[in-house]
């Protein structure tokens, strides 16, 4: 396959930017924020895999795998947290959870 590495990186960075935008914009819905995080993580994985293929080293792919494992742990905890918080306040609006106010 003859795609330059920079194209893969551009695709990954666009995807990352979209994930970031999603996290920042969807402050009213914590689930959409988590989805934004997933998008960003996937962009990072794309970068890893692209690098791994470019240099022919397995470490990049390996880190993608680790990332997936970590993400699944993170998502399970985060969603459990969402359930818990929703049970307390009947909402998923992050602006309502401001007890960390300084």
């Amino acid at each position, binding site marked *: 396959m003859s795609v330059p590495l920079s194209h893969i990186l551009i695709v990954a960075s666009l995807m990352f930017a979209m994930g970031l935008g999603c996290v*920042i914009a969807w402050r009213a819905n914590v689930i959409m924020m988590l989805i934004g995080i997933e998008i960003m993580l996937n962009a990072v994985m794309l970068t890893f895999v692209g690098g791994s293929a470019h240099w022919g080293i397995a470490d990049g792919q390996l880190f993608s795998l680790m990332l997936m494992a970590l993400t699944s742990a993170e998502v399970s905890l985060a969603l459990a947290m969402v359930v818990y918080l929703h049970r307390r306040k009947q909402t998923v609006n992050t*602006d309502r*959870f401001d007890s960390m106010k300084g």
Partner: protein
Amino acid sequence: MMPATYLTLMLLFPLLGGLTCAIAGRKLPRVLVESLACGAVFGSFVCALLTALSYTAPTVVTLAEWFASFDLVIPISLYLDPLSLSLSVMIGFVCGLIHLYSVFYMREDEDYARYFALLNIFVFAMLTLVLAESLPLLYLGWEGVGFCSYLLIGFWYRDTNNADAGRKAFITTRIGDTAFMIALAWLFQLFGTLSVTKLNGMGFLMPVSVLTALGILFLIAAMGKSAQVPLMVWLPDAMAGPTPVSAMIHAATMVTAGVYLLARMYPMISASQTALAAIAVTGAVTAFYGATCALAQRDLKRVLAYSTISQIGYMMLGVGAEAVTAATFHLLVHAFFKALLFLGAGCIIAAMHHEQDIFKMGGLRRTLPLTFWSFLAGAACLAGLPFTGGFFSKDSILMAVWHKGGALYQSLYLLGLLTALITAFYSFRLVFLVFGGGNGHVHRTTGLGVMQAVLIPLAILGLFGGVLNLPGYMGEGLLTRLFVAIPGGGAVEATHEQEIVMQAVAGALALAGLAAAWLRYGKGRAHRMQEAQSPPSPLISFLANGWYFDALYNVLFIRPYRALAGILWERMDKGVIDDSLDGLGKGIGSVGQRLGRWSTGRVAVYLISFAAGGALILCYLAWLVL
């Protein structure tokens, strides 16, 4: 080996006594504290006597290393020579008697532990000052003396006036101490050592101008401690302390320290005629000043205070006239008769129920005969009546001044003679006013017996103190023989005829003063008593207020200083520093509050901030690339 043991014990006795009284004095019974304090000083006196008996030649005794860092090496070393020896014997004796006297004088005071602790430490500090071989050790004693005098002058500190007097003494003497400190630093820079013996041996290595400056610095130090013009204002106020303390400050410790310092550093200073002249002029002017002020005082103790200023002036004059022996001679005799006068005054004041105005006294000749005769002896010494101790010592100083020659010294001689006349006059003014007349009432008599008994040895020593150093035509003087080894200690080479003529002149003047006092205050006593009721004439109040030096200093220094302090406090400290700090604090506080609003507790805000930070870093990287 023996001198070292004696010297160490001499210092240790009062130190340990003082520390014991200070630490455990309140718990111990009163008798024990009193006997401990007295015993310590008398033990010290016995050690001094033993040292004197076994004395052969000047010795340096190094007790310990104090500190030795880089070039600065200061051992705790003591120097035993005729000067320090004679002074320490005198200090031990006089202070011992004053301690004994204090036991009865302070009988009704509750704070006896503090009193005796301070008194003992005072003696210790003075002995350290006298015996020290290295100047820093001497300085330590010097400051110790100043510190103890501050605490003792303000002993009855509940009265603001007393506390103020203590502070005045401390601050005024500190001016001199500063000069001393500068001299110390300069000496170390010049010679690399601070040992008295070495410095005196190396003085000639320096140009005369430097030695003059050093001499002046030492003179300023002595001015502060010895209450010389212009730093004499503290001594009259120092009367606020208990009378035995005044006796100690005036006779044995404290004020003589300045003269001692100049005598100690004399071999070095004497290379500069200018410095010597400055010392002599200071001494003579102070002697005259003190005598004139004493003329008009009404307070018994203040008369004596001004007389001390005057007599110390004579000693300075002696040092300035290259007569260290005569100065020391006068110092010793003065210590005896001034202690005598003060302790006698203490008896009078105690008997008069703390009345100190001499115009309200009278007739004590019959009610306090013992005090009268001792006080008379003291006054005779002070006045320099012929063949008393004061006569010989004062005359030896005046003779040295005359013998030095030159217009300056001859005019100083005349000033000294005039002062001697005034001295005789005011001494007997005091005697006639206090003891003359017929209306004597004694209020208190408890303990007076011992207090009066203490006066007797002092009176004998004062009257016959001349034996210490008889003039040449009566046989060689004891002190002269002892002092001949040290520079400036030799006898003045005057013919016997000259000596006799001069002593006759001085004696005649003293008798003239006595006669004048008799005419004015003995015969015309009743008239003077009436006069004292009316407001004093301008001249009298000028003299009574010490030439208005206090007011002058108030205008010259204290008021500008207060104004400056006020400006610094209100404008600088409050206006600039405090306000700017307050402003800074408020500014930071408001910034913090504004920043604090940022931490809303909302995740979204944090996320945006976080992302913005990341974006900034990216922008920076991109900017680096571009």
